[in-house]
């Protein structure tokens, strides 16, 4: 049984007439165990085999090795399959439309099969997702996870086809997405991974692919808690401003809310391994008299039907300014990180659109926030795109001849956050 802990970081003291309460709720899972322990687990590996995967040829060679490395990590008993994707999805392993259980024999067969992945054709990611969903549906499983690799834009089908693939996967399987090279669309993959509760990242060099695939599959196999939900109660008369995952990555969960009752909403969080996730909860409540106390949110982690952990977000109205003016470091930190993510994305979008003035302001603010919040990864990646003249004031100059890969790396990492210093 996994152990869950929840911690709440907030300044519960509000000045007279204040209404907005912000809190960071950290949920930590320990002793998660192994995927499939509570029911079956299933994995599908989706490898882009469009024609561009042979340009250069080492892309497809690395993809074969990466698929094999991932297969090697699949624990015994897990249902799995491998799909090759071009204009449509092709089953690579097994040879009929089904999932097979991992064991020494099936892993060896699958690793052999992926050595024959050959490029040709276009890119229709929606059709790959639809096929993965159909495969997953062939077995009863508690947790389903896919790895998707592509090197290009979704250009061989309509946006509607892509949306159909995403919708087929939503609430059915989680999907970690990886883009190799510089011809894929960060926003497109981010849309898929976000809807399917997975991660997105760039693999700049093909030779790094095997290690990344191995790590992804290993992480998935370590998620022994098949499915958990974040349940948020807010009091009558209040307004839930937003619920946002802020660590380890930023994901606005507000759109995923399932209204359970008048005062309770649930948000899917997928499967959990031994990890911590931070949530930023913001609630607007009618102000109360000085000295009054109120519970502003119950934030619960729900596994099955059981509440595994609960954090209480409170408010106390006070006229003591030494209390009410305190800024909670966690709230401040993650508020800054969320803004960092959006200014990076907005700045890069402005740059791509040729609006250098906006790009300079946004990326300047990003440099300032990254420095303030100690996000060194963001600072390093920003340096490849802009020249930081003064991080304190957010003064930057756009660099000329920036490599596309550096921009994409900055974009994909924009939602990764650092912990509070």
């Amino acid at each position, binding site marked *: 049984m996994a152990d869950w802990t929840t911690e709440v970081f907030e300044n519960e003291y509000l000045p007279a007439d204040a209404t907005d309460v912000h809190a960071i709720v950290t949920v930590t899972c320990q002793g998660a165990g192994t995927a499939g322990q509570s029911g079956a687990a299933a994995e599908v590996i989706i490898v882009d085999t469009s024609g561009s995967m042979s340009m250069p040829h080492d892309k497809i060679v690395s993809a074969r090795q990466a698929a094999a490395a991932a297969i090697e990590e699949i624990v015994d008993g897990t249902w799995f399959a491998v799909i090759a994707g071009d204009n449509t999805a092709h089953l690579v392993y097994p040879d009929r439309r089904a999932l097979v259980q991992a064991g020494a024999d099936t892993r060896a067969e699958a690793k052999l099969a992926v050595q024959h992945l050959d490029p040709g054709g276009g890119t229709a990611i929606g059709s790959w997702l639809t096929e993965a969903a159909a495969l997953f549906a062939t077995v009863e499983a508690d947790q389903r996870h896919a790895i998707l690799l592509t090197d290009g834009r979704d250009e061989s089908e309509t946006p509607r086809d892509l949306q159909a693939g995403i919708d087929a996967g939503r609430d059915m399987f989680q999907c970690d997405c990886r883009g190799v090279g510089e011809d894929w669309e960060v926003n497109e993959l981010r849309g898929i991974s976000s809807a399917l509760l997975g991660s997105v990242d760039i693999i700049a060099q093909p030779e790094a692919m095997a290690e990344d695939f191995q790590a992804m599959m290993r992480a998935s196999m370590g998620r022994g808690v098949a499915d958990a939900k974040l349940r948020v109660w807010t009091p*009558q008369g*209040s307004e839930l401003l937003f619920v946002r995952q802020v660590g380890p990555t930023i994901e606005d969960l507000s759109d995923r809310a399932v209204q359970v009752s008048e005062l309770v909403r649930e948000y899917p969080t997928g499967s959990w391994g031994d990890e911590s996730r931070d949530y930023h909860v913001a609630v607007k*409540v009618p102000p109360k008299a000085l000295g009054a106390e*109120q*519970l502003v949110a*119950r934030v619960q982690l729900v596994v099955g039907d059981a509440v595994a952990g609960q954090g*209480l977000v409170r408010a106390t109205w006070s006229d003591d300014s030494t209390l009410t003016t305190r800024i909670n470091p966690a709230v401040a930190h993650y508020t800054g990180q969320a803004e960092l993510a959006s200014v990076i994305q907005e700045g890069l979008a402005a740059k791509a659109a040729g609006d250098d003035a906006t790009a300079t302001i946004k990326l300047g603010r990003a440099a300032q926030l990254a420095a303030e919040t100690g996000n060194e990864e963001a600072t390093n990646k920003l340096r490849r795109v802009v020249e930081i003249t003064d991080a304190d004031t957010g003064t930057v100059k756009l660099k000329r001849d920036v490599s596309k890969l550096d921009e994409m790396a900055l974009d994909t990492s924009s939602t990764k956050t650092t912990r509070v210093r």
Partner: protein
Amino acid sequence: MTECPACGAPVAADDQFCETCGATLGNAAAEAHLVAESEPPDTAVSTQPLPPVSAAQRCSCGGEIDADGWCTVCGLRAVSERDHYTEQVAPNVAAVCDKGRVHPRNEDATALAASRDRIVIVVCDGVSTSTDSDVASLAAARAARDVLERAPAPESRTARALVELWTEALARAVAAAQERAVASAAAVGARENPPSSTLVAAIADGPVLVAGWVGDSRCYWFGDDGATVQVSVDDSWASTQIAQGTARTVAEADPRAHAITRWLGMDAPPGDPTCTSVPIESGGWLLVCSDGLWNYCSAATELRALLEDDIARIGDDPLMLASELCDWANAQGGHDNVTVALAHVPASPTLPPGSEPEAGTESIPTTEPVPVSDQPA
């Protein structure tokens, strides 16, 4: 046997709390029985406060209260009578018992009695590392109070006779309290940390104040003649150090300061309470409190100054004064439960008819606190 209304587990008729879920049962029938039995024939004023144990099951908005203690509809904190209660058994005798600001529940308890010939104050402080100490402390405080309240009036009213009588009664009172604390431990079943509690009891009777205690809840006397004394001596690590010469401020600031060397409960070291007495002919204020107060104001002179400031501001109503001191402790941080019991002892104690005060000024024997040899295992 009946059922707990909260969880349905079987509970005994006189249980105040459910053993299974901890819900307060507020057993009015059992309380009433206790009142009838304990009512002394010569009671001048009501001695029985409202039982502070009935839980509010519903919020003022009508919503249900969650197990976390907050309303499930409007988010207000549930008002638990156990968390904050006051008692006033006579115009000059009152107490406030409060959860404080930090602890999740109130494990302090107090029980009072006042009649023509005596004032009885008991304060207990449940040990917060133990399970269900709030149950044990309240049961213990009431059991001790009942013994002291029912103790027959002495035939001789010399100071010496009174001190002997009350010293003996205090031993019985603490034994009764210990019995109840153990019974409540048995009720919650074998656990790692059986409930335990401190106890201090003070009786003001005519010319003498007699106090007995186990643990570090305290009794102070502020005489109108200027006497300003901490009557009790903590059974604690700090007081052992002070007795050995360490400065009070140093000893009390040590992390081990509050480690108590005696307590009530299943694993309590055996022995009678330490007892002592002081002369109180002049009248004055009797203050009995838990460490939730004295943590912020330990020295008798400072505590007296605090009380006198309050009297100058708000008058001498003991309930208002006790509330003021409790609020003050909370304003200092309220890091522990806070109990403040106060009695304004008149200069000329009213004596029962036919019992005249002794002529002359016999000196009052004062039993010195005996060092405690029972150390916890």
